[in-house]
Structure formats: C-alpha cells, structure tokens
C-alpha cells in the first residue's frame, strides 16, 4: 500500500521497452489499445498493436484549413499535436444503435442488447482531450439523466496521457486553461524527453489502476534533471501556441453581440458543412433515426452525430428556426463559448484548434472572437460618445 | 342627459378630458339600441358617427362578391366602434352588425368635427385617442393575417 502511495506522488522513468511493455500489459488485461497512427496523410486514432504503429518521427503542420505531415529530425513518438479524430468516437460513437425491437402482434418488444463495447485503453491522450472528455462527462453523466451507453464505455477506459512537448499552429489550449500539461483524468501520464538519443518517458500515475499497472512495468525513479525537463517541455509548448483566444468577459461579449454584423460576414465564408462540429472533441449533438427493414417486422433506433449547422437541426413543423447560416454559426460559437457555461459550468472549448484546421475554408474561432471584440469595442465607444453628447 | 354625461366622464377612453370637453361631447351624444343582426352601418355609407358600446357585441365584416360576408373583428362592451368619421373622405370601410341586442352611445361625428376645428385642444385629445385605437386595430389585423394556426405539413 505504501508502495502505491509513493508511486502516485513520485515521478518515474521508463524507456521504449518499458512503453512497449505497458502496451502489452494493457492488451493482456483485455484492453483494446487505441492511439495515434498514420492513415492517408493524417494522424488519426485507431487500434494500435504496438508502439511501432505510432507516428514515430512525424509531426503535423497545421493552419486554418490546412494540415500536413512532415518528417521530424528525431524519432519522437509524440512529436505532433492532435489530428481530425478525437476520443469521442470511442466513447460516443458516430453511429450507435440504441435499441432494436420486433413487432409482436399489435405491439412490439424491445430485444436483448448485444455484447458490451470493448474496454479501450487510450494511448497518447492530450491535456485538451482529457478536458474534452471531462466536458462530455458533464453532458452525459452529470445531468438529470445518465446516458447509460456512454457511462458503460466511460467506466471501462484506461487513459495513458501525454504532456504536449510542442504546440501546433492552431493550438490555443493555454488560453482555454485546458493544457498543455495534463492535470487530471488520466491513469498514467507520460512526458517524452530525449536523453542521449534515447526516447525516455517520465511517467506519473493519476489513479490507483495506473499505479498498479506501473508496478508491472520496469521503471526507475526520475532524476532531478529529468523532472526539471518535464516542466521545460510543457513551457516550451506554451511558448509555441499558434493561436490565442482572449477569454475575458467572453460570455457577455457573445450575448450582447447576437445582432452583430460580423455574423453575416462569417456566413459569407461558412459552408455550413459541419466539419467543425464533427471534429470538435466536445460537440455532442446527435440526431435520432427510427428505422425499419423492408418487412416492417423489425425496427431500430439509431443515434448519429449531428450538427447545429444543418437545416434539419432546428426544424420545427413549418421550417427551420435557424434558416440562415449566420444564425447557425452564431449558435455554434455562442453555445461553445458562452451558453455552455450556463448549461454545464464550463466553457465548451478546450483550445485544441481542430475546428480551425479542419474547416475547409479556414474559418478561425479565435479570429472571429477577436473580430467580434473589435466590433464590440468600436460599437461601445460609439455608444459611449453618444451618451456623453 | 346627466347620466349620459357621467357615463362619458367615467369612460376610460375619455379619461382626463376636462369637464367642459365632456359637456361638449355629451351635447353631441345620445343613446341608441340595435336588435340582433341589425346593421349599424354599411360599407361606403357616409361615416358621421361613432359609438361607445354599453352592452352587447358588434361584428365588423366585409362583403365579398360571390362569397358572402367575412367576419373581421368583434367589438365588445366598453369599446369604441368607428373611426372613419375622423378621416376623410368620411366613409365606412366595413359593415357593422349587432350580434345580439346592443345598447350604445352614439356621438355625432359631423358635429364633433366642426367643434374640433374650432377647439384644437379638443381635436388633439380626440385624435390622440382615436389614433391609438386605429393602431391597435391595425396591429390585431396584421397578426390575424399571419394565420398563425395554419397547418404546416412537412
């Protein structure tokens, strides 16, 4: 017991073989190990068998509407930031059958559910992503209703987090107080450091399960120098943040600017294609589809990722409440950054930058807020002058 | 006559008019009754009166060739019927029909118009009051036109 307590507090170190062992152990314990891997020019989250599947020696260059993989001049395992996928695809799948039923005379019966989803071990989750999971937890677990499917998946995960050693071109987690250092929500957290051309990982347990697993992995206590590297790595990442978002007074800024002309301006560019909401690790909106087979004897209910950018989303008999793209963009950003706070007690944005990178036309949430702020201050200065007169 | 004057003085529509102005109005006023379905006025006729409904219900309707009358609005107890007497060319725009036995005070618009010309204070007071009635009716008509309960089948 005392051993475990020490582990929880103490920083340890293991190398590539230790990391490989960690993956094997997780698999032996029945976890499906999922993590970053390269697929068609992007780093996505998928099943990984071993550390060989990780994007070793690769990095990603990101800008508004632009993502490119490049070779690094080292063999870092985590030398990139986040890609188009987020962990929500494992916890809150894009398409989920909620139940199936068959006709039973003049009524129907709901059928037994199939086997539970696998237990996932998330390898390489970043601080922003842990915050995103915590945000979705509040939506699906902390309200008056509990999403039992999400709860089932959520309680079975094992999280190996990674502190970011660099920030991407569209990252702004620092502004959102959501990274780059992982503070909670993990079982183990790694910081990748280089020492004499060796990949070393400073590791810290964040849960008893993490500490227990670490026992089985060959490791040694971190030296003082290695511990110092951890904070250096993180502060390097902070210094590299590609974007910033001024969050002062953000909620009221958005609320008082619902009629701002900026919404029309962004709507000229916005495609309402919904990519931003699909890649967002916190966007949780879904639609429900009731289906039948051709015989009409079998029915299913599916839940699918949906987006506030579609016309159907706000459909009330007769038409869409938000028929214009400007209203939909305003709804998305106002929800994300303002009304989310009223609903769930925190911002809905973790500053991961995915919505900027994966917007086909490069619309940038940080730029939009800055522009709104400017328009707002312009407006308020005019109002102030008028008042004086 | 005195009861008529008191009724006018107490009516919310004429609130805050001076005693002299009330007396003046009372001079142009008289009681009137309409039986069920009796027309109070018809579209196109000269509009030289207005009514304060004391009891009963009046229906305003418009007559459509081939389709008969279409009801526009009902005017109830305490409400004012008619503002066309105030606006040239002083013709009624709709038909007004009593839906049941109705009692009202009728005011002679022609007489009032000339009094308003002489006494602009009175003219202003009446215009203010009637313009708010015109506004309310316009607003109500507009909402009615929206047909808000219409089916919107998908």
């Amino acid at each position, binding site marked *: 017991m005392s051993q475990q307590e020490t582990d929880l507090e103490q920083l340890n170190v293991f190398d590539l073989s230790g990391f490989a062992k960690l993956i094997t152990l997780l698999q032996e314990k029945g976890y499906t190990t999922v993590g970053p891997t390269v697929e068609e020019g992007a780093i996505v989250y998928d099943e990984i068998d071993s550390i060989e599947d990780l994007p070793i020696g690769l990095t990603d260059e990101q800008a508004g509407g632009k*993502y490119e993989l490049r070779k690094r001049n080292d063999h870092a395992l985590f030398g990139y930031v986040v*890609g188009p996928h987020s962990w929500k695809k494992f916890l809150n799948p894009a398409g989920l059958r909620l139940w199936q039923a068959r006709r039973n005379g003049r009524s129907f019966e709901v059928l037994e559910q199939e086997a539970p989803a696998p237990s996932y071990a998330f390898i390489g989750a970043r601080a922003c992503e842990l915050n995103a999971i915590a945000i979705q937890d509040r939506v699906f677990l902390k309200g008056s209703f509990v999403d039992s499917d999400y709860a089932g998946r959520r309680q079975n995960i094992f999280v190996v987090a990674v502190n970011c050693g660099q920030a991407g071109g569209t990252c702004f987690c620092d502004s959102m107080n959501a990274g780059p250092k992982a503070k909670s929500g993990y079982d183990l957290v790694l910081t990748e450091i280089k020492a004499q051309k060796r990949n070393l990982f400073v590791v810290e347990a964040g849960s008893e399960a993490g500490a227990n697993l670490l026992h089985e992995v060959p490791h040694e206590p971190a030296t003082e120098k290695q511990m110092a590297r951890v904070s250096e790595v993180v502060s390097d990442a902070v210094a590299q943040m590609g974007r910033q978002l001024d969050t002062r007074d953000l909620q009221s800024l958005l609320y008082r600017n619902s009629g701002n002309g900026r919404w029309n301006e962004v709507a000229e560019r916005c495609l309402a294609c*919904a990519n931003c909401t699909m890649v967002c690790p916190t966007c949780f909106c879904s639609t429900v589809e009731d289906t*039948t087979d051709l015989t009409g004897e079998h029915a299913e209910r599916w839940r699918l990722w949906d987006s506030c950018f579609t*016309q159907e989303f706000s459909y009330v008999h007769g038409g869409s409440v938000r028929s214009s793209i400007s209203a939909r963009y305003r709804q998305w950003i106002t929800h994300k950054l303002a009304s989310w706070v009223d609903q769930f007690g925190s911002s809905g944005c973790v500053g991961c930058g995915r919505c900027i990178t994966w917007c086909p*036309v490069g619309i940038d949430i940080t730029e939009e807020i800055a522009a709104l702020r400017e328009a707002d201050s312009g407006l308020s200065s005019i109002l102030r002058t008028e008042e004086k007169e | 006559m005195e009861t008529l004057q008191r009724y006018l003085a107490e009516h919310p529509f004429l609130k805050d008019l001076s005693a002299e102005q009330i007396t003046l109005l009372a001079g142009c006023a008289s009681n009137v009754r309409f039986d069920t379905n009796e027309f109070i006025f018809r579209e196109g006729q000269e509009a030289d009166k207005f009514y304060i409904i004391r009891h009963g219900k009046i229906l305003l309707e418009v007559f459509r060739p081939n389709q008969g009358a279409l009801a526009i609005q009902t005017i109830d107890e305490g409400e004012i019927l008619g503002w066309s007497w105030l606006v040239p060319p002083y013709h009624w725009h709709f038909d007004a029909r009593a839906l049941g036995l109705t009692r009202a005070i009728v005011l002679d618009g022609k007489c009032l118009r000339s009094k308003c010309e002489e006494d602009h204070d009175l003219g202003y007071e009446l215009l203010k009051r009637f313009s708010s009635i015109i506004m309310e009716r316009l607003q109500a008509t507009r909402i009615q036109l929206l047909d808000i309960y219409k089916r919107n089948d998908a």
Partner: protein
Amino acid sequence: MAGKVEKPVPAQTSRRAAKPKLAVWKFASCDGCQLSLLDCEDELLSVAAGVEIANFPEASRAVIKGPYDLSLVEGSITTPHDAERIHQVRRASRFLVTIGACATSGGVQALRNFQDVNEFISIVYASPHHISTLKKSTPIDEHVTVDFELRGCPINKMQLVEVLSAYLNGRKPNIARHSMCIDCKRAGVSCVMVSQGTPCLGPITHSGCGALCPRYNRGCYGCFGPMENPNVPSLCERWAAMGHADVEIYRALSTFNVNAEAFRKESSLYEKAGDSE
C-alpha cells in the same frame, strides 16, 4: 426541390392486404439507377416479397397496366414524347419518386442546355432530321409533381432500400440533406481537401453516397448534387486560392448535376474561362 417529402401515408404495416404495385420508368438516362435496384441482392427478396414489381424494363418484360402505388422514375425529359409520357406516368402513380441525378436535376445531358443543340445533332448524327429533341434536358419536377427525390449518380442502393422501406411502412425516409462532410467525418475519413490539398466538392454536396470518393482518397465529384443551402461561392473561392484555375472549377461544377441551380449559377461565373480554353 427535395423539400416536399411526405404526403400522409396510411399505415400499411403487417396488415398489408394486396401488395403495393411498384413501377420503374425510364426517361433519358443510362439505366444505372434502375440497376441499383437489381444490385440490392440481399434485399431483393424482401423487396419482391413486399411489392409487386409491375413495370421494370431492366428486370422483366411483363407490363401491368396501372395504376401503380409507387413509381420510381429514372432519367430526364429530353424529347417532346417524354414530356407527354411523364404526365401519363404521374396520372397512373399514387406516389412518384425520382431516382438519380438525371431525374432530379437533368443529368449530365443537361450540359446541352447551355449550348446549341442543333449544332450537336448535326455533328453527331448522320441524318439529323430523324432526331426529335428538346432544347433542354430538364428534371422531372419541372413537369409533374414529385413526392420524393432521391439523389445521386447513380443513387445509393441502401438509400433506395430505405425509401422503399419507408414507403412500405408508411414512415418518413431517413434521407439527410446535409453536406457529404458529415458522412465523411462519421466514417472517420480524414478530409482530403485539408490534409492533401485535393479539391473536393464535399462541403457543398448532398450526402448519400457514404463518402465513397474520400474513402478512396479522392475528392468528392458532387454526384449527389447541391446540399441544402450550399455556399458554392465560398468553396470556389477557396479552390481558387488553393491554386485551381477557373476552368477546373467550371468543370467540377459542370458534371452530373450541371443543371442544379446552385451549381449552374456559380459555374456560369467560371464558364468564360472554360470556353476560352
């Protein structure tokens, strides 16, 4: 166009009496959409059990006189004879569903709408005077009332099965009108436009194919036509900024759904470049 979806459909459910009669009609088209129905191998037996296929030129020669409960109409209207025939089909059909880009927007043959047809005819045919054709290729809903439009070149067979199931069960078909991107992202496919600079019409294209091309690392060709209120100008500007010439943009928009208004409107702005080449 695709908005007018449902008429009240009586519940048919398990108490179905006679099997509803299904007819498939062909106008100017390549037959590819009809073949999607034959392609539903796994579902075909259920389809056959659910409906009586009363007229289906690609599958059988038997022709049963109408009326039909459900007509699937493939192809566009290009000849005076077809312009008459579609009215007969409409009169004989309780529900009329158009299938495919030809029937819903005029198809690739609508390219002629913007050219001189007689010139084409004289170039292509040895005896042009035998040819009787209209100046334009037009979608079915310009001629008769359409109950539901199923998009695609060709249509997606699963969507066809969905429309048939919905019809047989008297429910609303689950056919979304949003962008192809939503399907792409649900499938976990990385955006080819962002990560590889591949021009892709996905962000303005109607969903339905299941993101077929991006799954194979290609940009979307817009086979399903414009999505609900597409922002075509913004995407085209982006393509131009990515270095694509006007003529490429013109050509991308001038394919199977060239006659769809949102595409046509924008492609006409880039058309000059296309001509001058």
